[in-house]
């Protein structure tokens, strides 16, 4: 059974939500934290409810509703979300009040909205959707776990379509704690030159990306979701990638573009650099975390990019790390020399030929690795 991405909507630190162009109006930030650009929530949520909703709930609900609108589907067959930290804003609010008010006279709203499944629940509530509803909260593979569930559900034919999303909010408290834990750079940096210097740490991010997965073919589908593999502490990531591709009757030669989860942290990026010189040596490479920042479900942002690249047939210059200058006459790009273009900022499209098969490879703190295979329909 083939599975397709029918539609996708993405709230991120870039102009990705209800924006005509595709990463054409890139926002530059200087600092170590990228904040999501807020959609006009009034279009999606009752203003009375907006006031009570935290940032992550609003982002999630807006992205989910737009995704359904784009798919022209009123009622999904299941709603599944992935989030590592869940509703941080409400969690911090309630924790703060417990300490400051010494457990006295606490209002319940923050606690009620602090549970990790709040976004999935709010979507169900707004749609009056009684179908399967679940939330995965496993660190850097929270989104992949949700996606894996959605793919199984479609294969089991328990649903014709599934709304699945990755959601994460960064609040001041989590940013401060994660900074102290050494995740982010010590000096402000431009996100657009994230890969230009080698230093420790990355930049924080947040966002909400939703996808309507379906088993139904339609020319309107964005892409085919061909495969997904989640790995924990793999012995050799290179071998794992080769065997993943093999399980789909592919080799690296069939991959037109690899989107990697490079995040500007010298240690984090070692894995990618190594692959770029070996397995991915002759494959065009793109990156995305300079646009959205690092966060546990950032691979959902990468999937949004991949789906759009396949639909539109263009690779925005802003994501390109390395192109392979191929002999377009015989279509064989593998025999040609490669050209390294690091941190490229350009308005030109990155590759002239439109990719048909994209591999997304991301790892989270070198423990959790994920591979997503996406193809043109």
């Amino acid at each position, binding site marked *: 059974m083939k599975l397709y991405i029918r539609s996708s909507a993405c709230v991120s630190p870039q102009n990705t939500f209800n924006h005509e162009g595709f990463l054409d109006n890139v926002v530059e930030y200087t600092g170590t934290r990228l904040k999501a650009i807020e959609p006009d929530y009034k279009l999606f949520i009752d203003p009375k409810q907006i006031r009570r909703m935290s940032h992550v709930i609003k982002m999630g609900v807006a992205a989910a509703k737009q995704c359904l609108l784009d798919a022209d589907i009123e009622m999904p067959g299941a709603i599944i979300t992935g989030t590592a930290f869940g509703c941080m804003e409400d969690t911090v609010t309630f924790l703060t009040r417990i300490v400051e008010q010494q457990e006295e006279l606490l209002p*319940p709203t923050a606690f009620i909205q602090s549970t990790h499944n709040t976004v999935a*629940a709010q979507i169900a509530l707004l749609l009056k959707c009684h179908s399967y509803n679940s939330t995965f909260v496993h*660190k850097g593979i929270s989104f992949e776990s949700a996606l894996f569930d959605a793919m199984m559900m479609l294969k089991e034919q328990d649903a014709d379509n599934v709304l699945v999303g990755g959601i994460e909010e960064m609040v001041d408290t989590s940013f401060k704690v994660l900074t102290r834990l050494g995740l982010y750079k010590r000096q402000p940096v431009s996100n657009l030159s994230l890969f230009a210097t080698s230093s420790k740490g990355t930049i924080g991010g947040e966002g909400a990306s939703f996808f309507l997965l379906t088993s139904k073919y339609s020319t309107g589908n964005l892409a085919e979701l061909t495969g997904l593999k989640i790995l924990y502490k793999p012995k050799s990531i290179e071998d794992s990638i080769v065997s993943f591709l093999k399980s789909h009757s592919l080799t690296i030669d069939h991959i037109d573009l690899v989107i990697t989860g490079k995040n500007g942290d010298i240690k984090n990026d070692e894995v990618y650099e190594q692959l770029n010189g070996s397995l991915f040596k002759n494959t065009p490479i793109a990156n995305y975390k300079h646009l959205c920042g690092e966060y546990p479900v950032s691979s959902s942002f990468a999937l949004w990019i991949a789906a759009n690249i396949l639909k539109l047939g263009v690779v925005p210059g802003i994501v390109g790390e390395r192109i392979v200058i191929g002999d377009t006459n015989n279509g064989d790009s593998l025999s040609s020399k490669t050209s390294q273009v690091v941190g490229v900022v350009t308005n030109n499209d990155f590759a002239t030929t439109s990719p048909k098969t994209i591999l997304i490879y991301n790892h989270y703190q070198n423990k959790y690795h994920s591979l997503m295979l996406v193809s043109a329909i």
Partner: protein
Amino acid sequence: MSSSVYIAGVGAISAIGNNVAEHLVSFNNEEAGMSDITLLDTIHRKKLPVAEVKLSNDELVAMTGLTANASRTALLSMVAASEALTDAAIPDFGSLRTGFVSANSVGGMDKSEDFFIDFLADNNKGKLRNVFDHECGSMTEIVADKLGISDFMTTISTACSSSANAIFYAARLIKNDVLDVVIAGGTDSLTKFTLNGFNTLMILDKEFCKPFDENREGLNLGEGAGYVVLVSEKIMQTLTKAAHCKLSGYNNSNDAYHQTASSPDGTGSYLAMQGALKKSGLTPPDIDYINLHGTGTPNNDSAEGTAIKRLFDPAYPPMSSTKSYTGHTLGASGGIEAVFSVLAIKHGIIYPNLRFETRMNELPFEPETNYLSGQDIKHVMSNSFGFGGNCTSLIFSRI
């Protein structure tokens, strides 16, 4: 897709026992686990009863071999998960495709609370090791590492139905031939966060809870962990002892009514029970015992009871809420009660619903109040409902 998924092992820890055998003794003796708060530093001590596991963190560390700084949630998880794995005694476990699917509601919150006191006073203070494993996923990872499971792990958090959903997901991983063996369930320790949270909702009973009683006043919070080991048909045939039972049905439906309250007619609960029956190919008369969600709050028991009435009327199987023993263990409850459901089939037991006195006005039935043994139990339904309208029913069946 493989046909059946079998339960090869069980493990549990709660206020009424540190292992499965101790639970069976407590049930037989009708001994509830609630008492005054001793572990949490809170203003609610001596005011609100809770169901604490009767082991300190130091004792749990000694039992599990985990690090001294581990969250109590991970410690409880380790105790029950390793008991389940030992019980299953799967030959050549290391050569199989194995997974750990665990659930919890607030991750390492017990440690984060300690961190937060110092952090609030000064953002550069607070021991980072206390917040390092804040994430729900950390609890699962710590235990999976200790159990030597690396093929597949994930964490589910859907409030109080979390671990029922973990078992449900694990079964599907086997049916889809992704894995051969999965340890699935959930864990939660008592925290000030959840105690105060439920207290603000005014649904905590100041006395021991009375599920499904007309005069019920709320729930008692508990803590613990419960896991089942699920195996494929192929693995079941290699077991040196018989599997306990099989997981024959499951369903998750959403009430889509309110973030925390259940709909008056129990729509989500009804759809979950109905869906699980459909999945198992059974009808209401086939169910021999219902392990109720039965928190003891006016709202839950009314909605769940109404849904049962809609589905089972006029013939009601015996039913009870084991939360009258363990308190409501939140993200662990579906796992712990799955273990109880398996044991009900294996030992032919129906657990009494403690402290029940008066039938609810709106219901034509009442829970079982006697400990019954020697029962012929083929099919058990286990209900777990959570915030966000998340309703899950599982059905366990004798082989």
